[in-house]
C-alpha cells in the first residue's frame, strides 16, 4: 500500500486532455447543427454569425483531432513506451474470457466471485481504444468528404455525399453515447474509482486500483522489481511502468492535497522530461 504506479506520462495526459477538449467541442458544434432549435444551442444561434463560427470551430477542432491522431501514431511508432502500448493493446482471447467472467461475477453466476486479474490494458480499455480508432477514421473520412464536397463530387455522384452525411451523424451519436455510457462509467461512476479516476490528471494509479483493474500487470511489475532487487540493477526499466517511491504520508484515499500533488507531479515530470 502507498505505492503509486505510473499510468499516463505527461505526454499522454496532454494527448488525453487535448482529445477531451476537441471531442467536446466537436460534439457540441456538431449536434448544434443537427438540432438548431434545441435550447442548449441558443448561445450559438443567438449571436450574429454564430452558425458560421460554429462551422469554422467544428472544422478547426476536426483538424486538431486528426493532427492529434497523426501525432499519436508517431508516438506509438517512435517511442519505446509507445511500442509497448501497441503490444499490450493487442486483443487476446483472455479479454473475451475476462468480460464473460466479469459478467458472470456481476450476475452472481460465479459463486463465490472469481478474482479476475487483468493485464496492463483490460478489456474495457481495449474495447474503448479500438472504438476510438474506428470512430476517428470514420469521422475523418466522412468529415473531409463533407468539407471538400466540390472536390469529392468531381469523382463521385451526389448520393455518396448524402451517405457521408448520414454516416457522419450516426457515428457521432454512437461515439458520444459510447463516451458517456462506457468511458464515464469506467472512470467516474464505477464505484471502485468514484468520484473519479485521477490518472488523467496526476498520471498514476494507486496499488489498490492496480489490484482491482490490472492485477496481472501488478504481479508482473512486482516480479520484475524483485528481480531487480536481487540483481541490483539500478534505474533499469521495470516492466510496463515506473515505480514511484511511496508517499510519505502513506495516504491512499483522495484528499484535496492530492490536487496540489497533481500539480507538483506535472512539475516534476516537466523537470525530468528527457525528450520523447
Amino acid at each position: 500500500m502507498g505505492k503509486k504506479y505510473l499510468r499516463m506520462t505527461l505526454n499522454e495526459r496532454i494527448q488525453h486532455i487535448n482529445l477531451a477538449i476537441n471531442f467536446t467541442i466537436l460534439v457540441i458544434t456538431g449536434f448544434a447543427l443537427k438540432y438548431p432549435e434545441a435550447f442548449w444551442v441558443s448561445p450559438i444561434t443567438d449571436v450574429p454569425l454564430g452558425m458560421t463560427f460554429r462551422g469554422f470551430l467544428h472544422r478547426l477542432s476536426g483538424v486538431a483531432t486528426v493532427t492529434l491522431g497523426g501525432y499519436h501514431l508517431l508516438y506509438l511508432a517512435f517511442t519505446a513506451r509507445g511500442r509497448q502500448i501497441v503490444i499490450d493493446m493487442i486483443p487476446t482471447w483472455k479479454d473475451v474470457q475476462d468480460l464473460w467472467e466479469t459478467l458472470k461475477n456481476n450476475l452472481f453466476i460465479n459463486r463465490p466471485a472469481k478474482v479476475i486479474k487483468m493485464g496492463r490494458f483490460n478489456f474495457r480499455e481495449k474495447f474503448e481504444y479500438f472504438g476510438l480508432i474506428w470512430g476517428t477514421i470514420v469521422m475523418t473520412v466522412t468529415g473531409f468528404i463533407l468539407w471538400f464536397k466540390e472536390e469529392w463530387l468531381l469523382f463521385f455522384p451526389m448520393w455518396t455525399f448524402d451517405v457521408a452525411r448520414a454516416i457522419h451523424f450516426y457515428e457521432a451519436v454512437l461515439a458520444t453515447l459510447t463516451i458517456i455510457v462506457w468511458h464515464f462509467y469506467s472512470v467516474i461512476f464505477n464505484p471502485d474509482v468514484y468520484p473519479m479516476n485521477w490518472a488523467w490528471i496526476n498520471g498514476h494509479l494507486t496499488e489498490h486500483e492496480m489490484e482491482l483493474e490490472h492485477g496481472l500487470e501488478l504481479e508482473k511489475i512486482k516480479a520484475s522489481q524483485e528481480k531487480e532487487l536481487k540483481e541490483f540493477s539500478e534505474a533499469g526499466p521495470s516492466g510496463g511502468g515506473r515505480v514511484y517511491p511511496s508517499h510519505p504520508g502513506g495516504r491512499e484515499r483522495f484528499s484535496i492535497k492530492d490536487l496540489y500533488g497533481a500539480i507538483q507531479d506535472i512539475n516534476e515530470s516537466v523537470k525530468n522530461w528527457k525528450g520523447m
Partner: protein
Amino acid sequence: MMWKVRKIGAIVLGFLALLFLYEVMGEGAWADSSKCLTCHRDENLSKKDKQGNKISLFVSEAELKKSVHGGIACTDCHTRILDDSHAKKGVKEADRKVDCGTCHERSEKLFKTSVHSIKVHIACKECHGSHSIKPLSDPKSTTFRTNLIQTCGACHPEESKQFADSVHGVGLSRGRPNHPTCTTCHGTHGIKPRSDPESAVHERKIAITTCPQCHAAEQITREYRFTTQPVKSYYDSFHGLSYRGGDTFSANCASCHGVHDIRPSSDPKSMVHKDNLQKTCGTCHPKASVNFARGKIHTLADIKGVDIGEKVVGWIRIIYIILIVTVIGGMTFFNFTDWLRKTIDRRP
C-alpha cells in the same frame, strides 16, 4: 298567458320601429349623392392643377352605385368638401384627400407602417381604385387575386412580368384558387422592404413561412399533387439546418429556385433545370462540377425510395440504429450489472 303574448307583441313592434327608423336614416343619407352628382355626372367636368394639367372631376354614377361603397354618401368620404369655398367653386387643397382610415381603421394603421406609405407616399386609391371600389371577392376588383399582377405591375412592371411567366403566375391566370399572387408572399397593407426583419419575404422568413405556407401545407400539396418532401428534406439538409440556426450565408428556397420567375425544373429557363443547375450551384460553390447537377437533391432517407441515395441512406440509418441500440444497450446492461454488483458488495 295573456301577459306573455303581449310581451312578444311589444318586442316585435319595437323591432319594426327600429327597422323603420334605420330605413328613414338610410334614405336621408342617400339624398346627398344625387346633389353632388348633378355637377359631377358631367363627363367634361375638370379642373386644372398648379402645373396646369387637366384633371377630370367626372364621377360615373353607375360605377359608384355598383361599387362596394355604393350605399354611402359622397360626404362620408369627402368629409371636408361641404365648405363655403366649394359652394363658390373655389379650390381647397385639403379636400382632395379622402381619409379611408375613418372606417378602415386597422388597414390604415397597418398601411402607415408599410414601405408604400413611408417611402413612396402612395394612398389607398392607388391600389384599390377610387369610386369604383369593389370587394376583394369580386373578379372585377383591382385587388382580386388575378388582377393584382396588373395592379402591382403598374409600379413594378419587371417583377410582374417575371411573375406572370412563372409557374405560380401561369397557374394563377388559369384561375386556380390556391395559386399564389403578389400578396400571398408579400402581404397586403403592411408590406415592408425585403431588408426589414418584419417583412414577410425577409431572408430569415423565406424558408420558414413564405414558401412553406403552401409547400408544407398538406391540403394544398394533396390537392395539386405535389409533395411536402422538398421542405422536409431541405430542413434536414446542411443548407436547411444551418439556415434554421440563423446562418444567412446558407441557401434558402429562393437561392436556388429564384424569386418571381420560379419555374418547374422541366422548363429549360428554370434555375433548377438540369442544364442550369451547375450554374445555379456555382453561385455559391464556384468549383461546382457536373455531378452537382446529377441526381436528386431533395432526398429523404427511405429504403423504398426511388433515388439510390435515398435507399442507401435509408439502409445506413437502419443498420446504424440497430448498431447503436445493440452496442449502447449492451454497454448499459453490462455497466449496470457491474455497478449493481459493486454496490451490493459495499453494503455495510
